[in-house]
């Protein structure tokens, strides 16, 4: 069924990304179908964040990335993006309502958010169990609360492709389960493809349709069950599996030469 690509929404072919003399991603092929949740799993420095930034169009690359929206090719799809962190310090006087209202309205939020807009923002958040956070400062949110707020914003308006960067970081177990359930639900309510990037293989396996093991290139991909049994392999052989690398120079460069964090 995979790679039939009739409903292939995002198609990445032979993607190579370099930063200076280091190769961060090499020959990556990844097809994401409509309504599919793909988990991209890899260790730190595997190039996961770079992959997302490349899809977002922020990085120069070799290869091809094509999108299809509603069956026809699109150069400019709507992409929802949930970043791993914000470049925001804790004291920043930006409330949840400010951010959501900026996303749904052209009315400048510094001039105040009227009742009507506040109700609308509340409705956007309610879908993601975050309505009660409306008046809170962004910096005061817990990891899980922030992820849900950012997800609410990424889903407004509904995108063609949703990218989630390390949603597990800084989120407690309960918060994470809630987050994954919501993401899983989105797949049913919206016909969108979702790419979820994480280092937490065990955590996502029951929520995704397909798992891609990435370490600068695609090492393996398949049904979560198959990959999980593969993980037993991984456990048996220890972290040595992650040392399988597609790039001769990645060993020479040392570990963690690049990547999101």
């Amino acid at each position: 069924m995979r790679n039939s690509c009739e409903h292939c929404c995002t198609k990445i072919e032979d993607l190579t990304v370099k930063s200076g003399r280091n190769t961060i991603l090499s020959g990556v092929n990844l097809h994401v179908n409509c309504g599919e949740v793909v988990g991209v799993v890899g260790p730190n420095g595997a190039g996961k964040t770079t992959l997302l930034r490349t899809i977002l169009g922020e990085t120069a690359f070799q290869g091809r990335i094509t999108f299809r929206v509603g069956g026809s090719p699109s150069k400019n799809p709507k992409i929802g993006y949930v970043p791993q962190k914000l470049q925001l310090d804790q004291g920043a006087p930006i409330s949840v309502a400010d951010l959501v209202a900026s996303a749904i309205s052209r009315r400048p939020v510094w001039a105040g958010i009227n009742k009507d807009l506040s109700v609308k923002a509340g409705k956007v958040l309610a879908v993601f169990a975050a309505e009660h956070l409306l008046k809170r400062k962004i910096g005061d949110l817990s990891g899980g609360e922030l992820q849900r707020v950012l997800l609410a914003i990424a889903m407004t308006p509904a995108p063609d492709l949703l990218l989630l960067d390390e949603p597990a970081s800084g989120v407690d177990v309960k918060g994470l389960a809630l987050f994954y359930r919501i993401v899983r639900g989105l797949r049913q309510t919206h016909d969108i493809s979702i790419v979820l990037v994480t280092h937490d293989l065990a955590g996502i396996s029951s929520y995704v349709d397909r798992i891609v093991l990435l370490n600068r290139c695609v090492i393996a991909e398949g049904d979560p069950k198959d990959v999980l049994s593969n993980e037993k392999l991984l456990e048996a052989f220890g972290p040595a599996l992650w040392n399988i690398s597609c790039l001769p120079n990645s060993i020479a460069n040392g570990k963690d030469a690049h990547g999101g964090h």
Partner: protein
Amino acid sequence: MAVIEAWYKLISMLPFDWAHYVFMKNALLAVLLVTPLFALMGTMVVSNRMVFFTDVLGHSALTGIAVGVLLGFHDPVLPMLILAVLLSVGINLLKNLTRASMDTVLGVLFAFIVALGIVILSRQGGFVKYTSYLIGDILTVTPQQIGWFFAIAAAVGLYWVIAGNAMIFTSVSQSLARSRKVNTFWVETSFTVLLALVVILSIKLAGILIINSLLVLPAAAARNISRNMYAYTGWAVIISLFSGVSGLIASYYWGTASGATIVLFAAACYAVSALSGAVRNR
């Protein structure tokens, strides 16, 4: 000019000593226009961690004056503006093209630009002529300059209406902003150019040494007591206006430099807001 005449008449009705002097009436009007402007710009300067950048911009005025002197300009405002705009666009490009630590880049630039300005202006011991630029002189503001402030205040107000929300997203996360089709490069560039205009056009009022405090203090104080953008913006404008008017009037009675006196009032506001913020968060 009819507006100015009406303003003079209005202020003359006040029962204060200072209200009889034209230079105080001009200065007060300038303060009422410039301080809210500084407050608005300051909120974004603080949010985007551009405090050091604006300090470099302010100090580039020195080099701008020097270039003006070299080229034989009577009024150095044009070379100052050109230099500051080039500098802000250049720094912004550098920030986007490289991942170099901006802290270090700005530090190097700061030293270079100040040294260059001082070297040129100090030839034959002539630096004393330019000290008024260092500490500022709001009392010499002319109605024509006030007209300029009015124009730039209108431009900033319009910019805030158009780009306000885009600026918030850009300051929260560039990637997030770009995924929402915000042209972050354009937002940042246009903001820094506007910043260069505001800083250079008001440098004679505020002074190179303290203009940055006037930008940063009201926003920093507002940040201590605000939980959303509306409160942040509102408090910054109120604190800036309050410090501006009280600093100007106090400087009249104390016989001190107006710009620095205004900064002291703003600093006092910062102290009070930091305390009340700390108490509230307990």
